[in-house]
Structures are given as structure tokens and as C-alpha cells.
């Protein structure tokens, strides 16, 4: 946690407006947010509060209407489309609620895909995909198609795919939204361990309080603005909590 110095993500005065006239929606209305390398930040808020828009703007999937996003010190506003594509492909790992796996490719092929698209030789891409799948404990499932995997397994494949490029930033949108509670717990424990053991920088969007509480820091959005920004202190171990005196 916060081992490396500096800034992984810096968002300043971020505004995002969709549509015009009658259909005009101000999804983000002046967001400031700094994320340090190795931080695990949850962004929480009601549906429609702007969580996904914030994530997509940080991840260069949507341009800001106003304001700036810097990833690893580089302002996205200064990059042309090609440079943004490369940044998305190499520096950022996305995980979505709906997994977004390619149905006709195996788990390992899905994970290798970002590397193959980036021009890596297939053998090397597959070797790295195998490593990423091991990290999410899915080696035995590597030859399966997404349709042959449970929801939780598919999401873990999606996480492996997000990790395979060794990105500086993981952007995760409602990772447990399509999962039952047990599979959701596993996915959250996996994200937690990525932050603990691999020092990944994670920005995760969720409307679930339990998932949000897994992060080290909680940013609450309402109507496109930051309502609260709370660092969650490291607590005690399970054994201590289990024997805590109720009085």
C-alpha cells in the first residue's frame, strides 16, 4: 500500500456533459481526485451518480467536457487518438460488470488477446496469459470457453485479461454486479489480494457497501460531485473481531 511515491491518477475539475438542450445531462460536475500508486479506491454512489462516467473518463474511453485527467503524470488531453489507444491497451486494465469476454475464444485466448492485439508473438502472449490465469487460480480452466465457466470464473478471467499487460491502473466497474454472493466474495478477495500482494492501483466503482468497504479508501459520489472522501484505517484480524466484547 502506497509504497511507491507520486501519483497514479490525477483528476482535476472534471466535468462531463452528455447531450444538449432537453436531453442535456451533467454526469460529472467538477471532480477532483488524486490516487497514489498502490491505492485501492472504491467509488460509491447511487445509480446515476456518475460512477461509470468517471471510470470511463479516467480510462480514456470518454473525453472530458472540461477538466483534466493525468495517468502516471501524463495529461490525456495532450494525447492524440493513437496515443490514447496505446495507453488504454498498455497502461490500463478494465474490468466490467458484464465480463465482456469473447465467447468463441478460450479463457487463455481471451486473456492473451490484449497482448496479441499489441503485436506480441502468440507464444509469448500465451505464456503470459497462462501466468495471469494462474494468478486468478484458473489454470485448470484455461482451455474452456466463457460459456463453460461460471459467472465468478468468467469475471476472474476478465481480471486476468486486465492484468496481463501489467497495467499501471486497474479500473473496475461493478465487478460483482452479475454474480451471486459467494462468487462476488471470491472476486472481491482476489481484488483485495492484488492490492495487498502485487501493489496494483485499483479504482473500483460499486453501489454495494460491502464491496466498497474492501478498499482502502472510499469516495462517495452524488449527482456528479464528490460528497465524501474517506480513508479507511487498517483494522484488526479476524480472531480479534470474533472475540470482541459486545459491551
Amino acid at each position: 500500500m502506497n509504497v511507491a511515491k507520486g501519483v497514479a491518477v490525477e483528476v482535476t475539475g472534471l466535468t462531463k456533459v452528455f447531450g444538449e438542450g432537453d436531453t442535456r445531462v451533467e454526469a460529472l460536475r467538477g471532480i477532483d481526485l488524486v490516487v497514489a500508486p498502490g491505492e485501492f479506491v472504491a467509488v460509491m454512489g447511487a445509480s446515476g451518480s456518475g460512477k461509470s462516467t468517471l471510470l470511463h473518463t479516467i480510462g480514456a474511453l470518454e473525453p472530458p467536457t472540461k477538466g483534466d485527467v493525468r495517468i502516471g503524470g501524463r495529461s490525456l488531453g495532450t494525447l492524440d487518438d493513437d496515443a490514447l489507444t496505446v495507453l488504454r491497451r498498455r497502461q490500463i486494465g478494465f474490468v466490467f460488470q458484464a465480463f465482456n469476454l469473447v465467447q468463441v475464444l478460450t479463457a487463455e485466448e481471451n486473456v492473451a488477446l490484449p497482448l496479441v492485439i499489441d503485436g506480441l508473438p502468440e507464444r509469448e502472449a500465451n505464456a503470459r496469459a497462462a501466468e495471469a490465469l494462474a494468478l486468478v487460480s484458473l489454470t485448470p480452466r484455461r482451455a474452456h470457453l466463457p460459456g463453460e465457466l461460471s459467472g465468478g470464473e468468467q469475471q476472474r478471467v476478465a481480471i486476468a485479461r486486465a492484468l496481463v499487460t501489467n497495467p499501471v491502473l486497474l479500473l473496475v466497474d461493478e465487478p460483482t454486479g452479475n454474480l451471486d454472493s459467494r462468487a462476488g466474495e471470491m472476486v472481491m478477495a482476489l481484488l483485495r489480494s492484488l492490492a495487498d500482494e502485487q501493489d496494483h492501483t485499483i479504482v473500483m466503482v460499486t453501489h454495494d457497501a460491502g464491496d466498497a468497504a474492501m478498499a482502502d479508501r472510499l469516495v462517495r459520489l452524488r449527482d456528479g460531485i464528490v460528497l465524501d472522501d474517506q480513508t479507511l484505517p487498517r483494522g484488526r484480524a479476524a480472531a480479534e473481531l470474533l472475540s470482541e466484547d459486545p459491551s
Partner: protein
Amino acid sequence: MSIRHAILGLLANGPRHGYDLRATYQDDLVRAGKLNIGQVYTTLDRLERDGFVEHERVVGAEGRDKKVYALTAHGRAELDRWIAGPSPMPLDLRNEVFLKIAIARRIEGVDPQDVIERERRACFERLHEVTQARARAQGVAVEDELLLDLAVLRLKAFLKWLDHCEEKLS
């Protein structure tokens, strides 16, 4: 919670002495509750008076006399009755956060929404503590997991209630 029935339950698999019952109760069954040895013997005395347990004096390893307690048939029937019956579900509506909100509403210049906001932050810290502990604890016993789940779900429910308070009082 019924200490009586916990003790009957701990005797269901064979006779045990008081210190042993206390240790299992505290270290295994109800880790969040302290039970002093006096309470154990008082409870055993009452259970014996009611015919649910009986004791026998046994000479222990160090040559000391020990009372070893065993479940009677009557005690076993009482244990089965307790397990089969529904537990009381106390609503326990004495709540400190509610009290603060209610008092804040009655005092000029104190905003109950500020109370709600502070309590929400505290609740998130607590939820963080429990979910982290659960995620990081490798190979936790299933019963411990169930207790941590109970804590998580209660805290999530409480957060939801705070949202309701905020909405209804705005």
C-alpha cells in the same frame, strides 16, 4: 442467549467437567462472550436441580477430586426441544445512533444529518475492518466465517438504515 442450553449441548457427546465446559464455550462456541467458572457451576447446579444433568466425583490426574457432569435423558429431551423450537427474535430497538439522531432533532442548531453522516463514516470503517479481516484470513473455520458474515450483513443493513434516515429527515 441461553448458556443453559449451550452447556446441555456441550454435554451431548459425553460427560465433561466444569473447566472443560467453560474452555470450549469461550474458546470455541461463543468467543465474543466471557463466562466465568462461577457462572458455569451455578448453571450446572440449576440444571442438576431440574434433572437435566447429573454428576459423578472422579479423581483427576493430580489426585484431586473433580465433578464430571453428564446429560440425563430428561436433559437430552430439553436440548432437543430447544434446538427444534424457534429462538426469540428480539427487536432490540434501544439504539444509540437512533438516540443521537432523535436528540439532535430536538436541539436547536444541531443537524441530525451531520449525525447521520458521521455515523455512516464510522460504520464504513467498521465494515472495512470486518470485510478485510474476512478476506485476509486464510483457512478460517466455516463457523467463524458465518459469524463474520453476520457482522457484515448487519453493518450493511445499518448503512442502509442510515440512508433511509437521511432521506426521510431531509
